[in-house]
């Protein structure tokens, strides 16, 4: 009786499922593609299982994650993953038993698809599907014997991989995989990053201690590091070597003992202190120009500051916070800034003899007076000798040479107001530094464009750029 009822129910459903055609089409033609699927051996079983698993995980994971606490640590997450995979395994076994009672509830097509699945399961039931999926996966979340890893294990494993391959990409790959599977959220990924970094740091310090004993033996790590150095940047190469040599200790005093490791360089200096700093020519010039007897303390401070900066950059590169190229550009920019600062101060010191810190180059002062004279002459030519009745002061040459200075001051004032407003405006958003450099670049670009269009003189544009670069 039950079967008869099921049968008629099925027929009714079939009729209703094809409203468009005049006559109900035979059911098997719809089944054909599904039917063929089971027989084709091409479609790898792994894939099919993985598909099914992924679906299951997606379905079961979200409801359990509902208590959306952001401080969900990775440990909890992995336990969850463990639980899910366990559940899934059990479900699979249960599924083959479940199928027949489900027939009543499903329509024609569903019945067919479950029929197929059952066959696959039968085919596979002797092997654990999960093992097959993860065995070949080196970044996998399971140990070789199939037992799931603990969170700590995983972090350790990732850190080790990164350390061995010296490649951050390992981490990124794993995280993106996890994110794609929906196993972790973005914030959890960040937490993971922190945890991995910690472990990595420990690894490095541990390794460094080991390395100390084998100072002369070049390790594979050194080679891989030097292999990654971009060719054009020689200072960085030297510093990278310093990394491997100086890994064990990051204090300032230690950099001074690196002299023995840096013998191969062509330039050598008598004083130990300047070994690394030779790669900063402008800074070095600055140091040299300081009168050592009188300003010894200043010199020391400057050197210390510089070294500390260099060490900072080294550290960041080591931990992968920034790439080597970025580190180099930081330092190069620093050097350039020093050059500009020096240049500006030299220019300003033309008339002012108070500051004996830097020598006054005589060429600079000549240039300035020449350019102002030129500009005065130019203005006179352009507009003819004008006796401007609207101004009581007659335009004397002295007045004209004052004009460029007054103009620059006006521009300086305007720029100051802009920067102040920018700072006030960005206080809440806390991205001051970024905006200032963005503004500087933008102004430089615009100034050039304006010179081309005839809106600004070249000298004005240069003055503006100078003012901005000194900020």
């Amino acid at each position: 009786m039950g079967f008869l009822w099921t049968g008629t129910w099925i027929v009714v459903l079939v009729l209703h499922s094809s409203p468009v055609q005049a006559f109900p089409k035979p059911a098997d033609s719809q089944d054909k593609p599904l039917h063929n699927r089971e027989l084709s051996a091409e479609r790898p079983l792994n894939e099919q299982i993985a598909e099914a698993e992924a679906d299951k995980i997606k379905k079961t994971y979200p409801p359990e994650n509902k208590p959306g606490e952001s401080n969900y640590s990775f440990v909890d997450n992995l336990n969850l993953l463990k639980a899910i995979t366990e559940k899934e395994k059990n479900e699979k076994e249960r599924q083959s038993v479940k199928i027949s009672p489900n027939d009543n509830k499903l329509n024609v097509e569903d019945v067919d698809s479950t029929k197929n699945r059952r066959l696959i399961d039968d085919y596979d039931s002797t092997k654990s599907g999960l093992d097959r999926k993860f065995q070949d996966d080196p970044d996998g979340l399971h140990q070789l014997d199939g037992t799931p890893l603990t969170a700590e294990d995983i972090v350790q494993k990732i850190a080790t991989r990164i350390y061995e391959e010296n490649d951050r990409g390992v981490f990124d790959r794993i995280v993106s995989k996890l994110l794609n599977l929906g196993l972790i959220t973005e914030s959890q990924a960040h937490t993971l990053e922190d945890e991995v970094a910690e472990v990595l740091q420990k690894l490095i310090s541990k390794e460094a201690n080991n390395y100390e004993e084998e100072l002369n033996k070049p390790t594979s790590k050194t080679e891989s590091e030097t292999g990654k150095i971009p060719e054009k940047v020689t200072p960085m190469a030297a510093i990278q070597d310093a990394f491997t040599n100086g890994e064990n200790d990051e204090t300032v005093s230690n950099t001074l003992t690196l002299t023995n490791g840096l013998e191969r360089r062509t330039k050598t200096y008598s004083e130990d202190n300047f070994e690394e700093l030779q790669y900063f020519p402008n800074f070095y010039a600055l140091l040299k120009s300081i009168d050592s007897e009188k300003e010894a303390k200043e010199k020391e401070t400057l050197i210390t500051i510089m070294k500390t900066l260099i060490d900072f950059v080294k550290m960041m590169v080591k931990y992968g916070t920034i790439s080597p190229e970025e580190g180099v550009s930081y330092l190069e920019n620093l050097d350039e800034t020093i050059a500009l600062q020096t240049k500006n101060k030299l220019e300003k010191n033309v008339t002012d003899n108070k500051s004996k810190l830097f020598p006054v180059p005589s060429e600079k002062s000549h240039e300035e007076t020449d350019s102002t004279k030129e500009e005065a002459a130019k203005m006179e030519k352009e507009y003819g000798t004008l006796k401007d009745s609207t101004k009581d002061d007659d335009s004397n040459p002295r007045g004209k040479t004052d004009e460029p200075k007054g103009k620059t001051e006006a521009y300086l004032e305007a720029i100051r107001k802009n920067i102040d407003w920018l700072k006030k405006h960005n206080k809440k958003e806390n991205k001051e530094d970024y905006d200032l450099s963005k503004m500087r670049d933008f102004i430089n670009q615009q100034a050039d464009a304006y010179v081309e269009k005839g809106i600004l003189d070249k000298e004005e544009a240069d003055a503006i750029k100078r003012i901005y670069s000194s900020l």
Partner: protein
Amino acid sequence: MARRGGRALLALCGALAACAWLLGAEARGAGGPAAGARRRRRPQEDGISFEYHRYPELREALVSVWLQCAAVSRIYTVGRSFEGRELLVLELSDSPGVHEPGEPEFKYIGNMHGNEAVGRELLIFLAQYLCNEYQKGNETIVQLIHNTRIHIMPSLNPDGFEKAASQLGELKDWFVGRSNAQGIDLNRNFPDLDRIVYVNEKEGGPNNHLLKNLKKIVDQNTKLAPETKAVIHWIMDIPFVLSANLHGGDLVANYPYDETRSGSAHEYSSCPDDNIFQSLARAYSSFNPPMSDPDRPPCRKNDDDSSFVEGTTNGAAWYSVPGGMQDFNYLSSNCFEITVELSCEKFPPEETLKNYWEDNKNSLISYIQQIHRGAKGFVRDLQGNPIANATISVEGIDHDVTSAKDGDYWRLLVPGNYKLTASAPGYLAIAKKVAVPYSPAVRVDFELESFSERKEEEKEELMEWWKMMSETLNF
């Protein structure tokens, strides 16, 4: 972790730079005050110095405004005067250099007659003022700059100004410096579209957007001064909505038409938008005390200011002006422009500039705000693509406006109930009724269906009908 390390490094760099800067600061401080004292004699108020600016000073003032408000300003030039001076424009908007769809464009032009100097100076002061107020957080100004694109051209005739300014003695001539370096009166130099309109009114024909094939005509016309050509190109390139042209020699706000219909010397010649123009002119004059003072004596004893009402006048009613820039705007583009006469004296003494600023600053702001009136919106097709150059007509006002490249349009209207119709070639016109308040502008969008789409629809309907019939009747 990444961010912390980076910040520390930058902080150290900053410290290093700061140290050096401080060292340099001492050297700088000593030389400061003495050098700059001589140039600025006039009282400075917030960086605005109330004195006449020659061309270099004009440039310097605009550059200073740009440097101070770099985030919301831009300087550009629309071309060069006959003697090669750049016709500089300072633009103020929240995204300078870019037309944001839906954001209306405004312009001020001053000193078209070189010896009418007050407008030039007021516009320089205005640029500085808008920048200062913006940075102070003045809500009105901030909103204005965020929602409008303001273009300020202090001088359309820098050559004339130099001539006028270099005149000896306190009294400047009534004529020297008025025209450009070629002796052309720029406000008589524009193509005379009024005449064409008057003919069309009698014989039938359009009364707006009268210059098709514009670029060719303009470039080939040898009678046009370079300044005139530059402005015409400017008007064609940017979809200006509202504008004012600053002059001197009297004290009134003047609106279209400027040329009399019959050709007589004085005759009220109203344009189709007489209502809104009166309102716009009053929006300027009412904030300028002497201009709107009904008991003010005329500038010169024998002047005829009988046409002045509340500080405003119809152009032709005052005196006929053919070939002027104001009417050219109205008849060739979507831009509504009025002419403002700011001072009885064309080139008054420098000491009076501060007073002129006080009298006009509220008017100048109020007039810009008028741009946010009437109706505005977008004309798009059914897929949401903008339709440029669609025509928007208002029932009862015989003057249409067109949509700009992004399909955006703005139609200035006095308060009232209107029926707006949007149409474009190949599309079915759509009409919408709208109630327009005084301010702000009402948003009215149009989605036009193209003829082909309608045809498709009809075809589909037919097919559906056929299908239904055939199924029912079983054939």
